C-alpha cells in the first residue's frame, strides 16, 4: 500500500498521495482506490486517514461556528448577512426580537440595518439551504466599536495557537479584546487606537508568514519591541 508523499510535503490538485486502503480526509478525493489531493496544501497522516491541510481555502459554514458578518439586506422577516462564504446567511427576525412582530420593513431596519456588523453563531446549514444564524446568545449581537480585520480562514487556528497560547499572548500584550470569527473575520477592541493597530499587525503577520518557521518567536519579538517603544515614548 504505497504512499507517494511524506508528512508535511506540499501537494497540488491532482497529486496522487496514496494507493490502497486509506481513508480520504480533508481536501482529498478517491478514484479507483487511489487518494488524490484536491487543493494546494500540506499532507498529514493520522493513522490510516490522509488529510491535506489546505493553504488556500475559503470558509464553508459549519453548525456551531462563531462568525462575524455584515448585514447586506433587510427583508420582510429577517436579514441577509455576508459571512465571507460562498453562501449568505439568514438571520430571522424572530431570533432577534423577543416578541412576535408585524412584518413592517421599517421596524427591522431600526434593529439591524445594512452595513451593521454582527457576531453570530451558525445554527443550521445543509446543501439545499443557506446557513441560518442566531444572535440570541451571550456574546453575540451587533458590534458597536472596534476594528475588523479579514484573514485567510485556514489561518485562524494559527492565530489561536496551541491551547490558545498565541491569541492569549496577543491579548495580553495589547490589552485588546479579540473575537475570532471562524470565517476569517476578527474583531479587535482595544483601549486605544494604537493598541488595536498593534494587535492587527500581529494577526496580519500570522496570516502572511505562518508557513515560515519561527513564527511564534517573531510575533513575541514584535510585540516586545513595540512595548519597549511605548515605554520609551512615555518618558
Amino acid at each position, binding site marked *: 500500500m504505497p504512499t507517494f508523499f511524506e508528512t508535511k510535503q506540499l501537494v497540488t490538485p*491532482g497529486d496522487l498521495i496514496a494507493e490502497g486502503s486509506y481513508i480520504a480526509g480533508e481536501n482529498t478525493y478517491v478514484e479507483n482506490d487511489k487518494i488524490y489531493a484536491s487543493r494546494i496544501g500540506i499532507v498529514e497522516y493520522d493513522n490510516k486517514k490522509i488529510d491535506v491541510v489546505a493553504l488556500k*481555502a475559503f470558509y464553508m459554514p459549519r453548525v456551531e461556528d462563531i462568525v462575524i458578518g455584515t448585514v447586506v439586506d433587510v427583508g420582510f422577516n429577517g436579514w441577509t448577512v455576508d459571512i465571507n462564504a460562498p453562501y449568505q446567511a439568514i438571520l430571522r427576525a424572530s431570533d432577534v426580537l423577543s416578541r412576535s412582530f408585524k412584518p413592517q420593513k421599517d421596524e427591522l431596519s431600526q434593529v439591524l440595518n445594512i452595513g451593521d456588523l454582527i457576531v453570530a453563531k451558525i445554527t443550521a446549514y445543509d*446543501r439545499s439551504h443557506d446557513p441560518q444564524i442566531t444572535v440570541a446568545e451571550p456574546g453575540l449581537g451587533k458590534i458597536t466599536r472596534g476594528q475588523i480585520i479579514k484573514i485567510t480562514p485556514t489561518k485562524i487556528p494559527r492565530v489561536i495557537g*496551541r491551547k490558545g497560547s498565541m491569541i492569549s499572548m496577543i491579548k495580553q500584550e495589547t490589552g485588546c479584546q479579540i473575537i475570532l470569527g471562524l470565517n476569517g473575520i476578527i474583531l479587535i477592541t482595544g483601549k486605544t487606537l494604537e493598541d488595536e493597530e498593534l494587535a492587527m499587525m500581529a494577526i496580519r503577520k500570522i496570516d502572511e508568514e505562518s508557513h515560515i518557521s519561527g513564527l511564534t518567536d517573531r510575533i513575541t519579538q514584535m510585540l516586545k519591541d513595540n512595548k519597549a517603544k511605548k515605554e520609551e515614548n512615555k518618558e
Partner: protein
Amino acid sequence: MSQKSEKLIDKKGIRLDGRKHDELRSIKVDIGVLSNADGSAYIEQGKNKILAAVFGPREMHPKHLALSERMVLRCRYHMAPFSVQERKSPAPSRREVELSKVIREALEPSIFMEYYPRTGIDVFIEVLQADGSTRCASITAAALALADAGIPMRDLVSACSAGKVDGTIVLDLMDTEDKMGEADVPVALMPNSNVITLLQMDGNLTQEEFEKAISLAVEGCKKVYAIQKEVLKAKYVSVKEAEE
C-alpha cells in the same frame, strides 16, 4: 493564397524565434497577483502577456441562473484593444465569444462542480499582449488562478498548441506561425488522468500528421504542467511549519 516571403523554418529545422520543432517558448508565471480576486495568475509565454482572475464560489447574479445541484462556471476571454497589431475594438468579438466557451469547457471538467450548489465561479481572462496560442496560455493561467482561489479540483489543466509550419509538425505556435502556417491544433490536458479537455484544429493535416500533432501537443502540455507545479510549490514554500 498569398505567397510567404520568408521561410518559417530553415534547413536546419530552426524556427523564426530560434526554436527547434519541439521546443516550448519560455514561460513565466506569477500567482496571487490581484488583491481583489479570490485567485489570480499572470503568465508570459513568448510575447503573450495574459492575466487570469477567479471570483467565487459566490452567489450567482442573476439568481435565476443558479443551479440547484451544482456550481455554474462562467468564463470571459477578452483581448485588450492594444494587445494586437491593429487596434481591436473592446466590444466582444465572435472569436472571443467562442474562445470564452471553449476555455470554460476546458476548465470545467477539472472542478468539482457538485461541491457547492447554487453558487457560481467567474473566470476572467484579459489578454494584454497576444503572440499566438493565447487560448492555451489563458487556460494554463486560469487553472492556476482556480487553484490559487482554493477551489477543489481533480487536477490542474495544462494547455499547449501544436501545428504545421512549412510541412513540419511543431510545438507551441507563435503568432507568425499561427497566421502563416498550415495548421493549428490547440490542446488542453488534465495531466494526471491524461485526458483532453480542449481540442480544436484549423488548417490541413493528413491523419498521420494529425496523430503526430496531438502527440506533440500532449507532450507540450506535460511540460507546461511541470512548470505550473513548480510555480505553485515555489509560492507556498514547504518549510516545516513552526510548532506552536
